């Protein structure tokens, strides 16, 4: 336990010491909220779909957790390149603990960022449907943060350099975000898009988040929960499996 705690603490200390990164990581989602929420909002309303900002907030919270979760999971790649991973790997502790100390730190950070975006959205005029459901939103965010940090950690264990990291951002993370139900309702989109979004596990997480925040959903709620938990299970196993294979 002290081992997991100290590794978690290290991630938190790193996070709090790099204020520029905090601002950078929160800036993008806020830009999305402002530009899309207000920019597209009026058209959305004219199309008879209701309040776009309301629809968008859960999607942007998911985006925040996605980007920051994968990024902080990727901390392992930085540790690999800058050498600190060796220090951890030759210590008399299991790799499992090393992985989870770091991943829990990453997940906590992305959760904090997600909560921060939620608070900003309140300032921008967002109101949840029912405050009593917000603890459930938090649970969804925790599960999502854990899954995505594990995913990031697994990928970081596999790639060797920062070019690899960039490609993953461009070819995996952005598509996962744009081809989900984060930005648009799936009811009237072309079949291809609808298909892609429906095989994207993140769509189900957003759906669940949207249900707990604004009482709207697209998929079956039980299916949402199952997909979210299955994603968490698969990404965790993936992370453990890949991390155990690191050789330096």
């Amino acid at each position: 336990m002290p081992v997991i705690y100290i590794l978690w603490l290290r991630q938190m200390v790193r996070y709090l010491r790099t204020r520029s990164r905090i601002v950078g990581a929160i800036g993008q989602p806020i830009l999305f909220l402002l530009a899309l929420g207000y920019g597209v909002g009026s058209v959305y309303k004219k199309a008879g779909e209701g309040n776009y900002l309301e629809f968008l907030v859960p999607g942007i919270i998911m985006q925040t957790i996605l980007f920051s979760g994968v990024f902080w999971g990727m901390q392992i790649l930085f540790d690999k390149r800058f050498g600190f991973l060796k220090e951890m790997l030759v210590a008399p502790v299991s790799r499992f603990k090393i992985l989870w100390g770091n991943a829990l730190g990453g997940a906590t950070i992305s959760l904090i960022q997600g909560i921060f975006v939620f608070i900003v959205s309140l300032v921008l005029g967002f109101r949840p449907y029912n405050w009593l459901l917000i603890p459930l939103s938090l649970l969804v965010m925790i599960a999502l943060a854990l899954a995505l940090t594990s995913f990031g950690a697994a990928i970081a264990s596999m790639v060797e350099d920062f070019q690899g990291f960039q490609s993953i951002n461009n070819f995996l993370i952005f598509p996962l975000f744009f081809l989900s139900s984060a930005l648009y309702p799936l009811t009237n989109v072309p079949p291809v898009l609808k298909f892609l979004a429906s095989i994207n596990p993140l769509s189900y997480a957003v759906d669940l988040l949207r249900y707990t925040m604004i009482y709207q959903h697209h998929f079956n709620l039980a299916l949402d929960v199952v997909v979210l938990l299955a994603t968490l299970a698969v990404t965790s196993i993936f992370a453990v499996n890949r991390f155990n294979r690191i050789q330096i």
Partner: protein
Amino acid sequence: MPKSIIQAENVVKVYPGDITAVNDISFDVKAGEIFAFLGPNGAGKSTTIKMLTTMLRPSSGKLLLNGHNVMTDQDAARKSFGIVFQDPSLEEELTAYENMRLHAVLYGIPKTQQDDRIKELMELVELWERKDSLVRTYSGGMRRRLEIARGLLHHPKILFLDEPTLGLDTQTRNVLWKYVQKLSKTEGMTIFFTTHYLDEAEDVAERIAIIDHGTIVASGTTAELTKSTGTKDLEEAYLSLTGETLRDETSNANNGLNMRTATMNKMRG
């Protein structure tokens, strides 16, 4: 006769693609000895150190550290050594003290002893005054000293030093070897080091092994090596054993430099 503290028996490492990095090496290091492991680039030095320090699994053979098998009794083997890696391995965004504390926790040093032990070692390497500075602000020499202090924190029986003086100025190098010799003398610690500076090996090492093309080509004291090769000093003996040709190291060295060059190229491109 002192007991062996590092034992390697018929150790082989074959990388994927049938590249044999280490080909059936055996050696013994006695407790309390200062042992130099020399060889050209790509000869198998790093692979051997990685296997000894549990970072890499040997393809076959047996490695014992302080009597613990590095494969089957990993945690006990890990507790018996401290290591200063060839490349930096500190967490730059933490202070020196925080780096030390993290190490103390990883190695299960009891909480009540942590502070005293950290202070003692940071004073030994003369960094206590700077304990609350971020490692990012440390010079190369200070980092090395901190890495040595960190490697000693958990009272290891063996200290591995992988090219510890690379890129350090003469003053720091002298100070570093002075510490190391003191440790060996006062604590009876076994020192296993690699270096490309043969004068260092000649000055400090009590026994030397030379590895080339994955096999150990010679071992013994400097006197024995020069005598058997009919040469004047260690450098000549080394060259007569390993030849004068240049080696290309197939390296995926994890130094931050590769990464920095890569990002710089990218920024330019």
